[in-house]
């Protein structure tokens, strides 16, 4: 269902032929974080190979079936252990991909904290990106955009301030490593209306090591970045400002084509023919009725 303004991507979480225990927990926890806006497939998919030319047809079919425009594909192999491929779709075709390896994973259950702080499901998170790498390194720039789309939740206009209780922190350690963690927020009283924020790690936390990535080609990118607001940039024509009189407008009146104009009231009595007919009738008195009056 296409709409003018889009409100956040649904994510499809699935796995390949071989996964590790660690990868399974990673996928499950991402699913928990995104409960309402994601779909989890638990079967092993052999024919999903996003980086290969034929291997994306299954993904595109799933995307169409579940209406998910983003996917997280987990797989494990000797060459790429604990591998996550995060990809986005445009019109149910692959738009871009980024591949990361997961290291130093700490699951949600391993964190001990006051249960009252636990973030509610579906709450809009704060997202923090730290590190110059996110601006200077192209892959990290791409990853930042992807992580933002993955975790930002639904784009809403009205937000309840009492409901902000989670934050994601992503730190770029080097040109290919990002530390990702999920924290609950504790709002403390401060002197002003703005409360003092305190971050308490609730997990999961992991290091993401950049592997491959694929950016969209220019044409596709241009098309996807088109927004509805692009067109109405029209300069207001024939409007000027005068210091003394204020706003001045120019009005151009085209030549009137009297023959083709639509008359505003088509009152029967106003028609010329009828008028003339009446006049003729009166003039002729009791002349025969059949005579139609008036020459045009």
């Amino acid at each position: 269902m296409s709409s003018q303004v889009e409100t956040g991507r649904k994510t499809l979480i699935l796995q390949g032929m071989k996964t590790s225990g660690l990868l399974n927990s990673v996928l499950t926890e991402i699913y928990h974080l995104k409960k309402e806006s994601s779909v989890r497939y638990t079967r092993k998919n052999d024919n999903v190979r996003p980086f290969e030319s034929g291997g994306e047809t299954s993904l595109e079919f799933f995307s169409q079936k579940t209406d998910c425009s983003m996917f997280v594909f987990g797989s494990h192999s000797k060459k790429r252990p604990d591998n996550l491929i995060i990809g986005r779709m445009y019109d149910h075709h692959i738009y871009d991909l980024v591949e990361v390896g997961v290291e130093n994973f700490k699951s949600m259950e391993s964190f001990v904290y006051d249960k009252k702080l636990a973030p509610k499901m579906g709450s809009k998170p704060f997202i923090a990106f730290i590190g110059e790498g996110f601006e200077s390194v192209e892959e990290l720039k791409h990853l930042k955009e992807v992580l933002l789309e993955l975790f930002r939740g639904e784009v809403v206009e009205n937000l309840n301030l009492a409901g902000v209780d989670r934050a994601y922190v992503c730190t770029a350690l080097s040109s290919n490593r990002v530390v990702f963690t999920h924290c609950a927020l504790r709002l403390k009283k401060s002197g002003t209306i703005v409360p003092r924020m305190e971050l308490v790690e609730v997990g999961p936390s992991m290091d993401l090591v950049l592997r491959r990535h694929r950016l969209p080609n220019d044409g596709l990118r241009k098309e996807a970045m088109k927004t509805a607001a692009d067109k109405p940039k029209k300069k207001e024509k024939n409007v000027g400002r005068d210091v003394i009189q204020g706003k001045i407008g120019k009005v151009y009146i085209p030549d009137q084509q009297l023959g083709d104009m639509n008359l505003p009231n088509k009152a029967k009595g106003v028609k010329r023919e009828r008028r003339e007919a009446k006049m003729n009738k009166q003039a002729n008195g009791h002349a025969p009725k059949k005579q139609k009056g008036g020459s045009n």
Partner: protein
Amino acid sequence: MEEARTMQVDLGNLMAFDSGHHFPSLPSSREELIEKCLEKGTELVQAVADALFNLPSTEDVDGPIVKLPPPTTKLPREKHLPKPKPPTKWELFAKAKGIKNRKKDKVVYDEQTGTWKRRYGYDRVNDDRDVPILEAKATDEVGSDPFAERRAEKKKRVEKQNKNRLQNLKQVVKAHALPSHIQLAATALPITGTQAAPKKVSKDELGNVAGLAATATASGGKFDKKLPGEKKPKHEQKHRKFLPVAEGKGQGSKEKEQTDRVLNKLLAKNSHEILNVDKAVSMYNVKKEKKRSKQKRDDSSNSSKLKPQKKVQKKPFKKGSAKKGSEKKGKSK
């Protein structure tokens, strides 16, 4: 520290990005690293919160609600922009004639009752059903019902409107700009985002459908009118055959035959338990012969001592006896 300069805040996404920070040296331990990350993270989150909580808020039951600005980060769309739909026939006509749409009020003053009534809907102003008397015109036929005629006209108008609406929709479909709710309704799918093809029924299934429906009738579909080209049902629907009650001409003794058949079947099943007559007879005869020859020898060898002669017990051999091996053949010593 020029943090404020390098901090970018996207309030619509509740996101903060500090591009000025870099780790001069990686902290030695993991805990230290995490601590630093959280420290920096807290700063950024605080920056977003500063902007967020300063937005004008409205009080609600659950808490203060603020109106978030639209996000500033440019992100690619997930679907193409909706295509503009082609103008409808009326819109084209109105544009050509210069007819502008005038805003109408929902309530209109009704002269007849002197009250304000709705323009449409329940209890509306010019309802067709409210007119009590219709004056006869010179053009009316004698037996015609003007009220029925008015209703028929209204129905025709509604149908025409519907037809026009569908024609307009067809134009929209051609331009691939069909609104999603109509597309869903047309294909009736439970899953969003799918263009499901209509379910294809195979030839065999279609052939069986008539048969399935036929079994619902009392006579099993035997007397249903068959369509041209429809074949007779594959197998007879009746599964039991009952013999005629009275024996008619040429029927013979069918019932007797039936019962005989049943009996033979039963016997055949239990035959291993029933006596094999021929075998029993031949065995008896053999035994008898042996006994006779033995007696002759004994007579010659022994003196005429009286030997108690045991009586030979002969049980009558009944044909078809159902007793299990309890029949003892007459045994003579």
